[in-house]
């Protein structure tokens, strides 16, 4: 059976070039970068080379890059560190959005229990934060604004440049979860006035379990995981050299091929969107323009997402109903509810997320099979029966 992977927002395959770059560090060059002997110094040199390369791609300085175990750690760390800066001046307020990833939202929920106040900005129907809302939400005691660069479920891209400028103007720290953006969009921390940025390598054909926290120089970065003097004393733990080298190779590859990839992705994306909109009572979630080039998020009325996913899986198509972390939970996605969808529609969501490893032929296969599956599930759905009846009645009136 043909197998098609269109769940690249959940994770991506390591690209062959990235794996090749990693291999020496899983074999000969195994030293601990903190060791002063040659084994260690070889590892250390590779580490610092990777740091510099990543910094340059993000428009940052080498010493602003901290290696972490992934996007979740970076998010947790950034928020905690930013608040510890604000705590010195008694700041106890945070501004975020209703569509953040759980790695941000759950941290904020915990902080609320600990006495912080959080304003969760609404988004418009396309999943985009309104600048006026942000402007009026920022207060004297706002310690941090944390708004994601691009959404993992519906692909909507936030006006980060404007948000960054506004935060800088108001003197508020700004963190962005750029886990879905980096590798897909050109991200520049200086142009966007970003103070903290999270990224994760496995979203752009790098390895799992490694990420970056960018922290602007001049900000006191309180460690989350402390101990040894790694990462200039800010993040303890023997560095995952192979993964870090792989991350840097993956980011470089993503940057070099970004333009070409984006063109190809957008073509496949447009094809899918056009065809899926032809299915009755289907809707595209997220902004039609300001969206990640590989993201296609749909709702199909009258059916439920998990059944759809498993049906797709049975014909070899690997997709998601929203974020990977919540697949299998009973509640519909907080993101789909935030863009105003009723529960019954939000249940019928499907996310197809493409990478440059996908092909137009695969899109054809997906469209063909998806149409059959949606029909099959609707045929056995009492909700669809009702919708049809209502439509007929309305038609008759």
């Amino acid at each position: 059976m043909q197998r098609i992977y269109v769940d690249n927002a959940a994770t991506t395959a390591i690209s062959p070039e990235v794996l090749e770059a990693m291999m020496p560090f899983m074999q000969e060059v195994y030293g601990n970068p903190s060791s002063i002997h040659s084994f260690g110094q070889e590892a250390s040199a590779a580490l610092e080379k990777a740091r510099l390369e990543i910094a340059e791609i993000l428009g940052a300085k080498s010493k602003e890059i901290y290696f972490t175990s992934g996007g979740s750690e970076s998010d947790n760390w950034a928020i905690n560190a930013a608040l510890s800066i604000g705590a010195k001046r008694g700041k106890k307020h945070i501004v975020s959005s209703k569509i953040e990833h759980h790695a941000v939202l759950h941290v904020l929920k915990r902080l609320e229990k600990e006495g912080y106040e959080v304003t969760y900005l609404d988004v418009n129907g396309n999943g985009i934060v309104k600048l006026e809302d942000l402007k009026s939400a920022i207060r004297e005691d706002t310690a941090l604004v944390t708004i994601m660069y691009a959404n993992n479920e519906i692909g909507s891209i936030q006006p980060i440049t404007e948000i960054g400028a506004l935060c800088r103007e108001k003197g508020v720290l700004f963190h962005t979860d750029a886990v879905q953006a980096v590798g897909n969009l050109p991200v520049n921390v200086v142009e966007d006035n970003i103070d903290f940025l999270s990224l994760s390598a496995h979203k752009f054909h790098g390895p799992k379990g490694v990420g970056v926290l960018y922290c602007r120089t001049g900000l006191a970065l309180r460690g989350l995981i402390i101990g040894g003097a790694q990462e200039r004393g800010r993040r303890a733990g023997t560095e995952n050299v192979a993964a870090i080298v792989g991350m840097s190779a993956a980011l470089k590859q993503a940057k070099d091929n970004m333009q070409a990839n984006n063109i190809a992705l957008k073509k496949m994306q447009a094809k899918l969107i056009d065809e899926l909109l032809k299915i009755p009572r289907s809707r595209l979630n997220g902004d039609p323009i300001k969206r990640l080039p590989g993201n296609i998020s749909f709702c199909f009325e009258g059916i439920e997402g998990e059944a759809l996913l498993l049906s797709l899986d049975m014909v070899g198509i690997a997709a998601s109903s929203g974020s990977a972390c919540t697949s299998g939970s009973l509640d519909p996605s907080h993101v789909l509810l935030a863009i105003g969808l009723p529960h019954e529609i939000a249940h019928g969501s499907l996310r197809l997320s493409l990478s440059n490893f996908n092909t137009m032929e695969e899109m054809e296969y997906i469209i063909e099979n998806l149409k059959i599956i949606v029909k099959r599930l609707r045929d056995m759905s009492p909700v669809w029966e009702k919708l049809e009846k209502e439509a007929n009645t309305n038609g008759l009136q």
Partner: protein
Amino acid sequence: MAYSKKVMDHFANPRNVGKMDNADGVGEVGNAKCGDIMKVYLKVDDDIITDVKFNTFGCASAIATSSIATEMIKGKNLQEALSLSNKAVVDALDGLPPSKVHCSVLAEEAVKAAISDYYIRNNIAHDSELFKCTGCCNSCDNL
């Protein structure tokens, strides 16, 4: 989230799926907000369930539990059908992930609702206690 082979089989090839035009009893439980609705149609002849159909909106285990539940009551008398427990449904499917056990409760309730409908249509006295929603599917509370 790993489903048993049995669940996947009943999801991929659901038995007794469909509607019934002149059913003797119809039961519908669940609601779309929670993500699961099951509708069971019965054909009853001399206290025996001679035919059964179902329609389900919901996840793979909702479809599989509906499918196996209909299979388990077909040909049985109403008393037997009423004794179908959600546990029996889970066992017949070789188990369900904990987060999906509520689907089996829904299947049990859908069968009972259809039988209840049959009793009411035919003015047959019955213990309404038996047909009360167990409230086990508390997914609604979480919303």
